Every structure is written in structure tokens, then in C-alpha cells.
């Protein structure tokens, strides 16, 4: 019969309409502002209204999410020690060429030293591809999760310098726990290998036991447990 297709379609609209109320009932007033409900609402079993009440509610950011790089520093005796060695790989691989690195020279010899004097990223140009983080051999630059960067003035606020880019390693461990754990494990293994090599010479035995005794960080290293600078210090 002519018109049945339209009626059937309207039936589906009606089903969606009813579903949105049913799902409200199912959560008994807890459907919004409730992380448990948000997970279901946004998962493969989602039913009813699909919107998120941003900014009061936020979608959880997955670990791999990438937005604007930051530089990792380690805190030692209140001083920031950047992992960056100003090797320039990030600047060379950057597709829109938004990274500038000012190298520093040793004041005595005048030769370049592996510590950037300054480090700039023009976030207007950055395309969030994540190549810099992917190819950095020192795990010194990583992609951030902070995407709320709107400002009133792009001229003064949108070229980030080393100070603005720097974030502690504990922050990195908190936003990317599994990546962090994997990298730390690899580094610990690397150290252990080095130490084992050194242990072949009897004089370096002490260093070897030190490395072996240090356990690899657990899969979900809490940011409070600061095991991060351990492999470097040995």
C-alpha cells in the first residue's frame, strides 16, 4: 500500500523517541554527570540520546589521543632537566615545519652541547600528526591531551617556547600510563644489558646487581611512584 514505507519510517523515529525516555528511566536520574553511565552511553551498547553535556561532562580521552606536543623534563633537586638533546629529528620530520630549536653552545669551548637553549612550536601551524613524538629517540617530546588552547591573541600566545612546552615526566606517566611503562621497561632492559656487559669485567659487578635488582615499572605506574629518572641515574 502506498504510504506504508513512510509509516514504517515514522515508526522507527518513534522508537528512537521512546528509547531516549526509556534510557533515562533505566538510569533513574543518573544518566548524566555519571562516568559509569557515560561509558555505556558512548559505548557499542548506546541507546537513547547520544550527546555529551560538554563542558560539564567530557568524553574520556583515550591514551593515544594526540594534540600539540610537549617537552618532558625530569625534576632533580628542584631543577628542570629536559630530556631533549636538541638533535633536531623532530624539526626535520615535522611535516608543516612548525618546530624551531635554538641550540646552545658550551660557554668555554664554543661547541654545541646537547641541551636546547630554547625550543619553539608554533601551534597555529602544528597539524597534530605526532611524528615528532614517534621518532624522538630520547622520548623527550610527546603528544599532549590538553586540547582547550583557545586564546584571544594568536600573535603573543600561540608560539610556545621551552618554558610553556615543558611538562614533568609525572604528567606524561599520568596521561599515557601504558606507553610510559613500555618505554621505561625498554630503558631498564637497555640499562641492564649495558650493565651486564660491564659485569663481564669483574670491576663493574656492583653496577650490574644494581640494574638487575630494579624491577620494571608495573603496567599502570602511578604518577606518584617516581621511578622515571632511575635508569638514567645509574
Amino acid at each position, binding site marked *: 500500500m*502506498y*504510504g*506504508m*514505507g*513512510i509509516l*514504517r*519510517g515514522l515508526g*522507527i*523515529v518513534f522508537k*528512537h523517541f521512546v528509547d531516549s525516555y526509556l534510557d533515562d528511566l533505566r538510569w533513574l536520574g543518573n544518566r548524566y554527570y555519571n562516568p559509569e553511565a557515560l561509558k555505556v552511553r*558512548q*559505548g*557499542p*551498547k*548506546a541507546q537513547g540520546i*547520544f550527546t555529551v553535556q560538554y563542558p560539564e561532562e567530557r568524553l574520556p580521552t*583515550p*591514551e*593515544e*589521543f*594526540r594534540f600539540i606536543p610537549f617537552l618532558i623534563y625530569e625534576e632533580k633537586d628542584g631543577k628542570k632537566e629536559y630530556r631533549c638533546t636538541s638533535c*633536531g*629529528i623532530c*624539526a*626535520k*620530520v*615535522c*611535516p608543516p*615545519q612548525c*618546530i*624551531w*630549536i*635554538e*641550540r646552545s653552545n658550551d660557554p668555554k669551548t664554543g661547541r654545541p652541547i646537547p641541551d636546547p637553549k*630554547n625550543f*619553539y612550536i*608554533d601551534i597555529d601551524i602544528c*597539524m*597534530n*600528526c*605526532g*611524528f615528532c613524538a*614517534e*621518532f624522538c629517540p630520547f622520548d623527550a617530546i610527546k*603528544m599532549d591531551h590538553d586540547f582547550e588552547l583557545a586564546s584571544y591573541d594568536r600573535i603573543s600566545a600561540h*608560539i610556545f617556547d621551552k618554558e610553556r612546552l615543558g611538562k614533568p615526566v609525572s604528567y606524561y606517566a599520568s596521561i599515557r600510563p601504558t606507553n610510559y611503562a613500555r618505554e621505561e621497561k625498554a630503558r631498564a632492559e637497555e640499562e641492564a644489558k649495558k650493565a651486564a656487559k660491564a659485569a663481564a669485567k669483574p670491576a663493574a659487578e656492583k653496577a650490574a646487581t644494581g640494574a638487575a635488582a630494579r624491577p620494571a615499572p608495573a603496567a599502570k605506574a602511578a604518577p606518584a611512584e617516581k621511578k622515571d629518572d632511575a635508569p638514567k641515574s645509574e
Partner: protein
Amino acid sequence: MALASAPSITELKLDREFPGEVTADTRKGYSGYIVKPEKLVEVATALRDRYGFNYLSSATAVDYLEQGQMEMVYHLYNIQAGGPALVLKAQTPRDNPVLPSLTPVFPGANFQEREAWDLYGIRFTGHPNLRRILMWEGFYGHPMRKDWKEAYYEEEGKPFETRWPGGQVYRAEERNPFGHNVKYPEGFTLEGWTEEAERAVYAALPTGGTGETVEGMKTDLITVNLGPQHPSTHGVFRVVVTLDGETIVKLEPVMGYLHRNHEKIGERNTFIQNIPFTDRLDYLSSMCNNFGYVLAVEKLMNIKPPERAEYIRVMMAELTRICNHVWAIGFLLNDLGAFFTPALYLIKERELILDVFEAVAGSRMMCNYMRFGGVARDVPDEQLAKIRELVHERLPRAIDEMEAYLTHNEIVKSRCIGVGVLSTEDAIAYSTAGPVLRASGVAYDVRKAEPYGIYDRFDFKCAVRYNGDIYDRYLVRVDEIRESLKILQQCLRDLPGGEIQTGKPQYQVRVPAGEAYGRVENPKGELGYYIISTGKANPYRYHIRAPSFINLTAFGKMCEGHKIADMVGILGSIDIVLGEVDR
């Protein structure tokens, strides 16, 4: 299936078939044949009529600055039998480049030759409407030429020395203030300038009265502009139509409003730097764009990704296809007047897939996921579980619901059936691809015709419909979603463990000299990358055969004789993305 048993073109020796007119291309790393320009039309006609190469997929120019040559490269396919491309090349001196137009033989060459004229300055004799297409009429110079320097030119290739080891910070506009970055012809004054662009657009359209009378009233042809700012054009796209009453007499698409010279940027980039740029072509299906590009470069590098990476690639490409098609269907319904209810029901499903992309690749749309010889990251187990749930339960149900909602709706049917018909012959002649081609009764799918990756291992059908109207384009998309789900289910069943990258990831790859054409079946049609490497860090030529762009060649043909209100639906059924059309 006929497509599977493609005849080998290696047996076909064109230099023997056309002695003296065609010679094999013997440059190192190159293949195909070089045709004498004056014989080009003759050879192409013979190939079309006698050898079955009836589909001109891609036509593009290359500027060999050192040799003083311009070269047009044509990729021809046998659409019935499938199989690899027959590559024809025609050379012409750089200082006065003229070639015969292939548009009379293959109407699908129309826009591509206009593009070659626009960006390379090759004149095509016999072309019906040789105007600029991406730049505006009156633009000075041909921007893809090797000696052309763009407004913020820095160096021939990235990485730029000012960033490393230079290290000074500046903004492009500081160094080159507004107005100082444009090239003008010699003796140019702004006072004496008149705008050619608009006049040129209308010059191709018929004007005046038709002399027809409707109930005693004399009617005039009127010209109407739709766009560039028009919600139904899916972006900044403009359509100039000549109307007789409400009926379209002639339609002229005007594009280039989003042109950013993507190919020039690509030639300044190093090979790996192009991967995130390909995301920005058809930004609704970035995974598939990545796929085509890495395939082309892998051909040159002669590497293969490990098994697991192959499966992951196919999985991501098929998820992207579903995303793209539900989007296309949703917005087709928007164009037909069903304001956003169907679109949002479908976007909800797409959103769940994008969540997977975000967790795996790091970004919902700009995935930047594939690498030469692998993929960037492994798929975590919890995401695999999610994909499994989507593919086996949620998405099939959603598609069933969508079909129940739309397919038999009388309004949809009356707006779609018999509207925008493209015959089989026209679909092939106009080089359309993807759902547009398959809705016109041509069972041609690159995944079947010339399987790339591991597509030959999966059991799926090439969706095909035979009426060539909006309704069939819609149905083909629905069929394709179902086939994609089938592929995904097989993928998830067979997904092996192991490595995801061949060799160590490198930030600068060595690509041997030569040419390669990598093509994939993008959701919108055949996406091809024509890449020439000279062994340096940057590609010498980086061309994209953009399916949306070439599908638009047939747009005028589809609309002729229809009402202007149907034009919006027809455009929606082609499914264009302006990021790819304008590049």
C-alpha cells in the same frame, strides 16, 4: 567472475602494434609507452575500440625541468577484464607545450586536462573548454611547474634550514607582509585590470531565449549560481546552471575555492611528511587515503608490511568505508529535504567507529595511521573487542534499521528513482569511479579488479546496480556497507599476531628512483597516487587521482534535463568532499 581472470597486458607489446608511433619507456624505474604527440588521439582511439582499454583513469602532467620536457601520463584500464594499467605518455617541449586533447575520445579527460593546463600550462588542441579549473581565470603563471615559487617560498624541499639548524622563529606573514607575496606579470598595474574570471565562467554557457513558448509565454534562459556558499554543495563548491524555466539546460561546476596546491606541498615534503597531508584530502576517509599513498611508495621501495599490519590496514580501510557511506547516505537525505534526522541516526554509528580510530590512531579524522611497511601502532585488545562487537552486532542492526527507515520510503523513492541517470557507456566514458560507476551497471572495484594488500583473500561481492540513478547509488552504498562488514568479520576471524612494521621505523626513508602508481578503492572511488622519485628525500612528482574531482566530470551530464531542485540530490549522490576536489 570475469574480473578475476584479467588478461596480462605484458603480452601486449604496443611498440610492435604501432611501429614508429609508440616506443617503450626505457628510463630506469619507468614503465609504459611513449606515444608521438601527433599520433596520440589515433593510438588512444585504437586502444579504446580494439584493445578494450576503454577507461581513462588518470591523466596528469609532469614537468621535467632539466630535460626541457613536459610529459602527460595517461593510465588506461580495461574496465571489463580488470588488471593493471596501460600507461601512455606523450612528451612536448617545455617552452611551448602543446598536445592534442583526449577529451573527444575519453570525455573523462576533460577536467584533468583543464587541470594540466591550469597547473602546468600545457595547451590541449581540440579541448572543448580549456579554461583554468583550480586557479581563477587571470591568475598569472602555472603553479605546479618546477620553476614556480609559491608566495611563502623557502626552499626546494623540506626540512627547511631555518628550523634546523637555524632555530629562529618567525611567522610567514612577518617575513612577507600582505601584498608582497604575489607574483604579477611584468608591467601589471592594478588600475588597468579587469576581472576575467567571472566572464570566463559564463562564456561557456548558452544564453538568450529558446524560442519555446509555454502556454503562450515566451521564456528566456536564465543563469543561476548555486554556491560557493550554499549548504547543499557540501563545502565551498559552486555550480552555475542555465535554466529553462526550472529545467537545467547546461551545468558548469566551478571549483578551486579550497585549492591549496596540495601536490606542490607534497613535492616540497619528504616522503613520510606526506602521510598526514593525505589525511586532509578526503577528510572523511583518511585511513583509505593513507593506504593508497603508502602502497605507492612501498611499490617504489619494494617492501611489504607484515601479515598483522596487512590485516589491520584492511580492517581500518573497511571501517572507514562504513563511516564514509553512512555519512554520504545521511547527507544525501539532508539534500533531499529530510533535515538531519536520518543523518544523525547514522552519525551516531559513525561516531562509535571514530572512537575506535581515536583510541588506535590518536585522532578521529586525521588518522595518520599507516607507515611505509606497516602501521603506526598496534590495535589494543580492548579496541579489537569493541570492533568485534560493532561489526558483529551493532552495525548490522543499524544498517537493517536504516534500510527499514529509508529504502522503501515513498518520498525517497519518488525523489530518487529515475533522477540523475548515468548510462553505463557514459559512466565509463566519463571516468567515474566507485559507487557512481557501480550504480550504472559496471562491476568494477579495484579490490577485485587489481587486488591490493590482501583483498584477494576475502570473500566478498562487488556491489553493483543497474539503473544509474540516485536510488541505485544509495543502494550500492548500502550493499557496500554490508560487504565491508563481511570483510571485517573475516578480518577479525583471521587476524594473526606478530609484528606491525617491517624493519625499524625511520624518519627519512630511502626511495629508489622511478615511478609508481598506487591505487585503492576509496569509498568515493578509485584513489590513485602517481609518484616519481629521483632518489632524493622529496618526491619529484606527487599526483593524486581524486575520485570526487573526476566524478564531477559527469555531473553536468547527469543533471541535464532535470529540475534544479534535483541537482542538489544528484550532487549528494555523487558524494564529494571538497578537500579532495580542490586539493
